[in-house]
């Protein structure tokens, strides 16, 4: 029963990532995605939470809000304490990205959002889907 549940979650995640999709972004944008991804890897602790479910929740929650913030489309309105936490991490991350990768903000709104979405997918791919951490999928702490 437990195994089936885990398998099902993986299917959902694969769908979310759409790994088979060919990335059609230009080379400079690919470099930008790779740069932001490496920056997050070497800095942010939230991507390393110990279990698959909370690691995934953090990446989706924080990067989702970061995408909204860089696109200036609508400011996230956190309702719960956990959402407020995601918002804070996203806000700090975007502030760092502004300093480290100013070229992102020379792009249009849609492209900015897309770049962050691609970074999110890469993080999910490396830190969750392809992770070789054997403790990630234990059912309890």
């Amino acid at each position, binding site marked *: 029963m437990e195994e089936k549940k885990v398998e099902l979650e993986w299917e959902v995640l694969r769908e979310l990532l759409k790994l088979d999709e060919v990335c059609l972004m230009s080379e400079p944008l690919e470099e930008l995605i790779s740069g932001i991804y490496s920056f997050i*890897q070497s800095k942010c602790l939230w991507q390393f939470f110990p279990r698959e479910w909370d690691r995934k929740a953090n990446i989706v929650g924080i990067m989702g809000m970061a995408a909204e913030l860089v696109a200036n489309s609508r400011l996230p309105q956190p309702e*719960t304490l956990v959402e407020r936490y995601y918002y804070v991490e996203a806000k700090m991350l975007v502030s760092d990205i502004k300093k480290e990768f100013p070229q992102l903000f020379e792009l249009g709104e849609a492209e900015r959002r897309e770049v962050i979405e691609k970074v999110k997918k890469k993080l999910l791919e490396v830190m969750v889907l392809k992770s070789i951490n054997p403790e990630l999928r234990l059912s309890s*702490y």
Partner: protein
Amino acid sequence: MPFVLFRCDEVIPEREKHCYVKAPGEDVHEFLPAANIATIPGSLTERGCSYCGAKLVIGGAIKDCIQLIHGPVGCAYNTWHTKRYLSDNDNFQLKHVCSTDMKEVHIVYGGMKRLEKAIKEAFEAYPEIKRMIVYITCPTALIGDDINRVAKKVMEELGDVDIFCVSCPGFAGVSQSKGHHEFNMEWMRGKVGQYEPEITSPYTVNLIGEYNIQGDGFVFEDYMRRMGIQVIGHFTGNGSYDMLRGMHRAKLNVVICARSAGYIANELKRRFGIPRLDIDPWGFKYVAEGIRKIGAFFGLEDRAEKLIAEETAKWKPKLDWYRERLAGKKICIWTGGPRLWHWVKAFEDELGMRVVAMSCKFGHPDDFEKAISRGSEGTIYIDDGNELEFFEVIEMVKPDLIYTGPRVGDLVKKLHIPYLNGHGEHNGPYMGFEGFVNMARDMYNAIYSPLWELAREDLREWDDRLGSEEGDGGEESGAGMGSFARAVEAG
């Protein structure tokens, strides 16, 4: 070849999967050292035991309860006062520890009556203390003593006391990490939610995985006070037993040692919806970032910026002085688990040092994910390192300084390499702005101390040299003594 088999491990090739050297372009989903698995027979591990993880690391830092170890007296002594975690109640927890002092007869006939007697005696000896932690140990677990039953009986009998029991015999799990886990989960199951703390601020946090080593937690508590934030549960440095029962009332969990206390933060998130914010409190940039995040969470950005500005103005010039002198120095971090990833970037980015090797005793795979992601290419990463591997690594990387514990530290000192205590800290606090300057000062003093050069000298050569300078006169003062020894005696 990302994994390496050291020469000393040729007879235990299983060690290869624990030793990794980061190559350009490698990601943590490609290579990760094996961690948190049983030590391979033949490898002289530096690990501690599960009981040690529960008592020495976590429970022992709680300031207002009696620590009672149900086992042989050595288990009490070996986890007592070896870690300098301070408290604001005259360090009660550092001064006192109780043991049931189990002997052969109690092992044969059972130790529960002895435990009951010891609990009552301890409460009589410290009448102002009404809280207690009882730890099981290997022998008392093996004979099946039911410490929970005894504790329940005494609590019912005495009425005004509360006792927490930890089932952490030394043989459980693969390292002290199991003891951390047991303490976290049992406290969460048995104690959290039992006490309603007095709330004095709309902004409330738990500080989790912070043990107030040499006053680290005092520094952080001061930052929180200046921002108007109330610390409810300090898990566990300078922590109060009852306030830790009220952890469910905080709005944010600020996590420092994610290895030893991430479990309780996760459970508080799962059960009470309290988010977990992991921070790095070492290094100016990291500390400022952590304070900014806490400030932003509560809408206290102005107070956070004021605090950062004040502290930076006070301490940054001092840090800059040390940075000039530490830049380019090679350092090894061989500690328990999280300090690898907490420290590596602070040392490299803010002090210009180069971390050439990292090893942890009880880290889990996620500790290596963090350490490798933050660490440099060419750096050596080792899980559960043994002494012979350390010798070989020293030969390979020729470090200027090693941050490690007293066990490996003694070995390092014999090689005349500067060593600093990375567990108990040398001259802390190490946390916060002030603490990072203290760290830099300790590193500077260790690296530039003339003692290391002097220690390399062969005193017999000095003896001969002094003897020839003194000529025959040497014989008059102290027959049988060398000239150097006489010189020392004469002051």
